[in-house]
């Protein structure tokens, strides 16, 4: 009885969380321009998406921009954040506290504040806003998460291995590549994925730092589209595909983690 109630409650919450997503997925299979209008089953929106029909709407270039920005931002954040984490781990006192304090600011700040503050920075420095400013802004709010994912791995590893590598004649660069990075890899991968997904999802920071050169990411495209009244129908199949890919990736990632954890527990 108790179990039934529990299932029912969890089911209701899940239904609430997934209703809009299911709604998008279902209406991706009809041609109607208005979301929520069913005009018969059709896969036309999907074929539009892949046939190059959309090349003039700006949707495809928005998707490309989003992916490219996320990739660059995540890569740079991972490198910068990993080096920073190693540095933070090995420093003490005020220097460590100042870096950690500044590192926390972008995580605590609301997107709007991060966006406005960076907008003011680029205005102040006289930098033309566009691709570069958006990428820099994304690196700013992504790197803290890399730092926080790499730090625990440093606590877990033996710090002497790096010194051993140096004693055996490796340069700091070699020791970093051959000794440190392999051990920090799990934290770097998690940090990279977090950075990538946060960059993909961002709207507010991009909105304030993209300038007036007409740069659109998926989020700003959707915003402009909705402001004009009526979303481009092809967004529905696109979102459905993204949802399925993300769903699959996260499930695989977590199932693998659970298996690894179980194996570890068995070995003990």
């Amino acid at each position, binding site marked *: 009885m108790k179990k039934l109630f529990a299932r029912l409650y969890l089911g209701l919450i899940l239904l609430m969380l*997934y*209703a809009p997503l299911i709604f998008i997925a279902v209406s991706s299979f009809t041609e109607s321009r208005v979301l929520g209008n069913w005009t018969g089953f059709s896969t036309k929106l999907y074929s539009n998406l892949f046939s190059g029909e959309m090349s003039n709407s700006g949707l495809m270039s928005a998707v490309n921009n989003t992916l490219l920005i996320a990739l660059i931002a995540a890569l740079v954040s991972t490198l910068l954040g990993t080096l920073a984490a190693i*540095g933070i781990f090995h420093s003490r006192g005020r220097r460590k506290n100042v870096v950690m304090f500044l590192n926390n600011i972008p995580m605590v700040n*609301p997107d709007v*504040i991060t966006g406005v503050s960076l907008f003011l920075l680029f205005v102040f420095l006289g930098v033309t806003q566009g691709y570069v400013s958006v990428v820099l802004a994304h690196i700013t709010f992504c790197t803290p998460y890399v730092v926080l994912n790499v*730090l625990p791995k440093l606590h877990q590893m033996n710090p002497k291995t790096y010194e051993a590598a140096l004693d055996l004649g490796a340069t700091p660069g070699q020791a970093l590549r051959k000794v440190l990075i392999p051990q920090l890899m799990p934290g770097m991968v998690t940090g990279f994925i977090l950075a990538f997904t946060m960059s993909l999802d961002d*709207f507010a920071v991009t909105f304030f730092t993209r300038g007036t050169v007409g740069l659109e990411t998926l989020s700003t495209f959707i915003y402009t589209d909705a402001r004009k009244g009526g979303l481009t129908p092809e967004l529905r199949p696109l979102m459905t595909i*993204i949802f399925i890919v993300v769903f699959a990736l*996260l499930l695989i990632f977590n199932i693998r983690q*659970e298996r690894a954890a179980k194996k570890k527990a068995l070995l003990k």
Partner: protein
Amino acid sequence: MARIQNIIGKRSNWSFPYAVFLILFVALPMVLIMGYAFVKEGGGFTFSNITRFFTDSDALSTFAVSIEIALETTAICLLLGYPVAWLLANSKFNKSSITIVIFILPMWINALMRTLATADLFNMLGITLGKGTLLFGMVYDYLPFMIYPIYNVLRRMDPSYAEAAQDLGAKPAKVFTSVTLPLSLPGITSGIMMVFMPTVSTFAISEFLTNNKIKLFGTIIQENINSSMWSYGAALSFIMLIIIGLTSLLTSSSEEDNVAEGGLI
């Protein structure tokens, strides 16, 4: 050359590039918000941008509405989310660590798109867009942020505390109120912060969910910045920063452990 080798070889120096980056892209922008808010054009200190806010009835009422909506959203998320976290962390009801992923997964889909779909869903069901739909949309958007930290704390809790209370004769309700609930407080404060902070500062979302009937504080900031009223926009951002600062002071002790856990994957 050997000197350079020495500097690079010292690992504490490896955070130097990031430190420079942080000063340029985090510290300086924060200083600039205060600069634009408190410095007159042409120099000199001024309070006029702040006093303007306190005499701007539009901005004041928007501010009050934003706080109210954020508080209500946070309260509803806590009421709905705590039982979910408790059930998922309880091995009697859920044995897999994958289930939680299914609950936080919608967060990975573009929030604007989800919000617009929610609004269209209401339209289709014939529900008028207004405060009710705004609250629903906000709860829908931020519920996973409440569930996850509470779940994390509950799952790591040593079950022997609750068992001990039970063995000593406490009824289930008593066990919950005097053992489980107090021990899960760090998760609750962390969840409150993770819901309250983004809700109090959202922009665009409320306009879409209420058909432009309810405007929130984030939108006022955006409107001022976009119409080149940078000083006033910066002053409003500064006021928002104070709210955020106060909230994080109230909850700071518990928040760090959760973030350090490794984020939301």
